[in-house]
């Protein structure tokens, strides 16, 4: 399973490196979201700093929907899923590989968004660095949920409209825990129990995804 996961992860990342959809579409969208949030809040530094943790996670959530759509669309062309099945890869391995590739991409998006937070929202860079463990757990959870829901809508004509409706309520707990944890860190504390909550979520989603992904990939 782990070997298959590495294989699929490498394949998805190679495709991303060649097509650069993340670089030219998802990352600019994330920055645009931050800028629009800043415009909506107004120029007050206090308001921006107070809203920063929530807006970071909201921007990350929206960007993750785009990244998930992209990740699922790699297998969208006719016959691709059947070809993967014919390779005899372990379904759990495929899920973990795709989730790992998505997590790496989300990490890159998060890094750029945090830079945006430093520039536009005047947050403390050193404090933001302390939030990294919390962020890693949250990104793992985002990637697991995204990969699973991406497979649910894959191949449908309405994937673009259906995916946000399905995935955003499922990701809301990650948004809440991520925002609370980041806000606690920026206020001078530690991520504390929110990092544990996110770690539990990540493990739970990864386990459920590994179990259920095979059912979604069965031939009709």
């Amino acid at each position, binding site marked *: 399973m782990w070997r298959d996961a590495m294989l699929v992860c490498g394949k998805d990342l190679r495709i991303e490196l060649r097509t650069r959809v993340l670089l030219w579409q998802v990352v600019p969208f994330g920055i645009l979201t931050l800028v629009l949030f800043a415009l909506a809040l107004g120029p007050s530094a206090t308001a921006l700093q107070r809203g920063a943790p929530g807006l970071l996670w909201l921007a990350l959530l929206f960007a993750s929907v785009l990244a998930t759509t992209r990740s699922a669309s790699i297998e969208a062309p006719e016959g691709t899923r059947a070809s993967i099945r014919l390779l005899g890869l372990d379904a759990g391995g495929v899920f973990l590989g795709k989730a790992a590739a998505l997590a790496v991409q989300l990490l890159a998006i998060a890094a750029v968004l945090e830079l945006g937070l430093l520039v536009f929202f005047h947050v403390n860079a050193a404090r933001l660095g302390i939030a990294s463990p919390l962020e890693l757990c949250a990104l793992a959870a985002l990637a697991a949920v995204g990969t*699973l829901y991406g497979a649910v*809508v894959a*191949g449908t004509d309405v994937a673009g409209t*259906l995916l946000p*409706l*399905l995935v955003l309520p499922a990701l809301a*707990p990650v948004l809440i825990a991520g925002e609370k944890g980041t806000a606690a860190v920026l206020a001078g504390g530690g991520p504390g129990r929110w990092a544990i909550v996110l770690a539990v979520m990540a493990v739970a989603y990864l386990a459920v995804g590994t179990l*259920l992904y095979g059912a979604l990939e069965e031939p009709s």
Partner: protein
Amino acid sequence: MTRRHLDRALGPIALVLVALTVWLGLWVTPPDETQGNFVRLLYLHPALAWVALYLAFGLAALSSALYLWPRTRSQRWDLLAASTVEVGVVFLTLTLATGMLWGRPVWGVWWTWDARLTSTALLELLFVGYLAMRRVPADPHVRARRCAVLALLAGLDVPIVHYSVQWWNGLHQTDSVLVGGFHFAIHGSMLWTLLLSFIAMTVVFVWMVRRRYEIAVTESALADAALEDAVLERRKEGVR
């Protein structure tokens, strides 16, 4: 009494039980010491929540798991899951609506971002997504598998809704009927009316799911027949 008779009697029984609950709740039970007449909404709200959260979504998760398990895989589990989710969403909407109607005069707001309320609203959205997925044209088996996975994923929110009042100390009250095991916190006509409302809503749910399931089976049979006719038609064209 045969199954058919019981099936026919289910609707009228549900109607009588609901009428009894309304009569007891509005005319027989006294007003509450602190909430006054607003307490009457609570003869409905917890029963609706019980049906939606535990009965409907529990049954949906169970039938979805049975569909995904290769040994028990059958289309009837998929149709049952779809029927229970559809009825469950109606009950959950009514739960939220009655909660809001009660919250406005008692809490002073229609809505508050309490953990119980928020997790319930998210659960409603997750199952609305399930219903949206069911309407996406696809091979019935593919759709059934996707929906089964969605129902199981959405079902993960049910324990969060249940324990939210204990994990986060919000505005929503904790267990207020059965406290400390089987010790009832309310008594007399208030208790009996509340218990009756649970039975009434359960019977209404069973009746609605049975009707919806029958419709789903008929729809599925019609779709199969239409497909068979189309195949026969094409074959005839080929012979000509």
